[in-house]
């Protein structure tokens, strides 16, 4: 009797772990032994597979059989289905309500096949705690290639690729690298910004948890390109699995000679250490992050000032990029800048990663080509709004972003279109809202977040966001005044122009964009004491 040889992937992302994925891993091991299959089957502890809503997830490769919402009680059936001449466990498969039948392989589910998983190619596929798995998936090939190139050639490739950074402005990564390369001085630093603090965003966490080696590889290549010998991975303290797995990855990379002295026999030496942030949202701002690593209070430095690429950590030239930016680097080096630049829209190349959450049928971690329309993301990948309800808005960019109305569903999503619509790419949170969401309440929620996370040094942000929150809070309680909308607009524009850093400059966006697109809801609260969505208790 021929035995099936399979790999059983058990998602160990934070979402699936909170759903009990660790127990599933344990019961799977015992059950395989009990059913006498442990020899033929390989269990793989994988990172986030992406479809967080259906977790805990178990995937059987090579067929890609996709089991959702698995509990330890389902394990005997799953293992039994691995015996020869058996069929998959139908009740655990993804059931597509549009065609009314279960789908066996995740590759046939729209949520997956409509995506373009480049940066996430290894997430949920490899064991993030095993460097051999990363190597088998092509890990550190780009590093080998890069070490044979000249630093200027690498920077030229990054420039030609069109890759842009994930700070609010979408600054071209290649130009940043060039500035750091040209900055005089022997001591330079690389920093990876993993201080993702937006409510509803989890892409940096998932990449660090699922594929830490590609981030490390990007950092090492960056170090070689600009001439840095030391790197810091700044990760939030609230991301224990990310810190743990990145720590393991660093140790394994050191052992294999990808980190440390004379990397892969070259003259280049580089090492990375993890720095855990203490949980301040503002420390995601580059200058505040640098101060935080120096052991100081994380408070952004005002303009005009030298760029971090000239005067950064310990006053040395420093290259600071986001987790996903570094994860893109091996792709560009391996496949070439042309390959990368052929993807995406005119001015935004490559892919965008979003944490798709809120009132959407399929929530999870997704990656799409830049320029994909909002409608495709929300309806084709996200499966639309649950229970046949109406789509009302989508919020992108977290507390710095804005809410976009149904009229913009056909908008291609990239850096510039989002900015023009009053939102931003930012960290990549994407929260879908339906007819039962009150836009004033949403604005209030985000302002509550920013007014608490303001570092307190500049007046417009410290008092202005608090004042905007107080006004919004009053409006949701039915105590709005007729002049409040004008006051909010006036304060919002003043805070945008006068604040010291990007936190304050973007903090009014949720309010300004909801007034721009949903002014009637504000008016209903203020003039009629009525909350159209039926959310605000003071206005029913």
């Amino acid at each position: 009797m021929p035995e099936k040889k399979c790999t059983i992937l058990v998602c160990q992302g934070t979402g699936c772990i909170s759903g009990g994925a660790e127990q599933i891993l344990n019961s799977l091991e015992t059950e395989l032994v009990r059913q006498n299959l442990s020899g033929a089957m390989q269990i793989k502890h994988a990172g986030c597979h992406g479809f967080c809503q259906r977790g805990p997830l178990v995937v059987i490769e090579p067929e890609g059989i996709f089991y959702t919402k698995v509990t330890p009680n389902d394990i005997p059936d799953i293992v039994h289905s691995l015996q020869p001449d058996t069929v998959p466990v139908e009740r655990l498969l993804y059931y597509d309500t549009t065609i009314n039948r279960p789908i066996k392989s995740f590759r046939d589910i729209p949520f997956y096949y409509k995506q373009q998983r480049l940066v996430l190619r290894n997430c949920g596929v490899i064991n993030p705690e095993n460097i051999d798995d990363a190597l088998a998936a092509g890990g550190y090939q780009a590093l080998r290639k890069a070490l044979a190139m000249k630093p200027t050639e690498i920077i030229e490739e990054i420039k030609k690729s069109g890759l842009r950074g994930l700070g609010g402005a979408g600054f071209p990564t290649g130009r940043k690298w060039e500035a750091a390369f040209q900055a005089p001085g022997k001591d330079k630093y690389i920093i990876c910004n993993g201080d993702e603090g937006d409510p509803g965003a989890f892409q940096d966490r998932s990449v660090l948890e699922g594929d830490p080696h590609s981030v490390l590889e990007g950092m090492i290549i960056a170090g070689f390109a600009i001439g840095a010998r030391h790197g810091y991975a700044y990760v939030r303290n609230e991301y224990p699995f990310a810190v743990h797995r990145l720590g393991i990855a660093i140790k394994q990379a050191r052992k294999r000679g990808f980190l440390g002295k004379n990397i892969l026999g070259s003259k280049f030496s580089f090492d990375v250490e993890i720095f855990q942030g203490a949980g301040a949202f503002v420390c995601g701002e580059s200058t505040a992050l640098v101060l935080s690593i120096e052991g100081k209070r994380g408070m952004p430095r005002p303009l005009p000032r030298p760029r971090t690429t000239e005067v950064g950590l310990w006053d040395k030239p420093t290259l600071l990029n986001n987790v996903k930016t570094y994860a893109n680097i091996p792709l560009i080096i391996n496949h070439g800048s042309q390959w990368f630049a052929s993807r995406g829209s005119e001015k935004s190349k490559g892919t965008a990663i979003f944490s798709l959450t809120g009132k959407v049928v399929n929530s999870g971690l997704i990656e799409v080509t830049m320029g994909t329309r909002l409608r495709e993301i929300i309806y084709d990948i996200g499966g639309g709004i649950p229970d046949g309800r109406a789509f009302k808005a989508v919020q992108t960019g977290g507390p710095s972003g804005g809410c976009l109305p149904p009229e913009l569903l056909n908008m291609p999503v990239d850096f510039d279109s989002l900015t023009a619509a009053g939102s931003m790419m930012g960290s990549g949170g994407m929260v879908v809202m339906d007819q039962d969401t009150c836009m004033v309440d949403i604005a209030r929620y985000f302002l509550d977040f920013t007014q608490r996370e303001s570092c307190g040094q500049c007046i417009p942000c410290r008092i202005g966001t608090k004042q905007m929150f107080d006004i919004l809070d009053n409006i949701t309680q039915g105590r709005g005044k007729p002049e409040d909308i004008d006051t909010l607009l006036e304060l919002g524009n003043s805070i945008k122009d006068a604040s010291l850093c990007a936190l304050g400059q973007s903090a009014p966006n949720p309010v300004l964009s909801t007034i721009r697109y949903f002014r009637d809801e504000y008016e209903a609260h203020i003039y009629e004491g009525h909350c159209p969505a039926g959310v605000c208790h003071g206005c029913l």
Partner: protein
Amino acid sequence: MSKVTINIDGKEVQAESGQTVLDTALANGIYIPHLCHHPELKPRGVCRLCLMEMADGELITACRMPVIAGMVVKTKTKKVDKAIRPTVELLIAYHHDTCRGCPAIGKCELQTVMSHLKIDRKRVRRLRPPPAKKPLDKMNSSFDYDPNRCVLCGVCINTCEDIHGVSLLYYVGRGHETKVAFYGDEKKCESCLECLARCPVGGLMLKKPVEVRH
């Protein structure tokens, strides 16, 4: 030091190269609102009141902008006013006490800013009242700290660090809960009172002499 000429609000003025626009303006009798600037301290740019409009329309703090030969800046444009007036109104709305009994009366920089901008107190009423009054910090043996009058300009913090070299004072808390505090090091304070001397408002005040009953 070479001299450069710059244009502030249509007036040509001479400046030493390396000087900031704010220092140049003040030296030439042009007032630009400011709270966190002090001539003996490094410019911090946190009060955001000295914003001025550059030739390209960008708003930049005059206190951190070095003069560049031939630069043209404007400090009284509509754009500047729209950015800084709400900031001052917010400060006043959150400034609990009236001026009566304030130790800074007569030398208060906030009063100077208010009269310069002709702040209309009636407009402040459209704003929501601030949270409850915060208690005074009486940890120090020679002065008290009033978080309700403090504008968090950071001048005291910088004085302690740059002038006295002790660095005992620092920001604590976040958002509107931010205040200046000793971080538990108040016993190390030598009561040089340099911070108190530079406070632009009435945030720091000498302790009242203890009344002795006869």
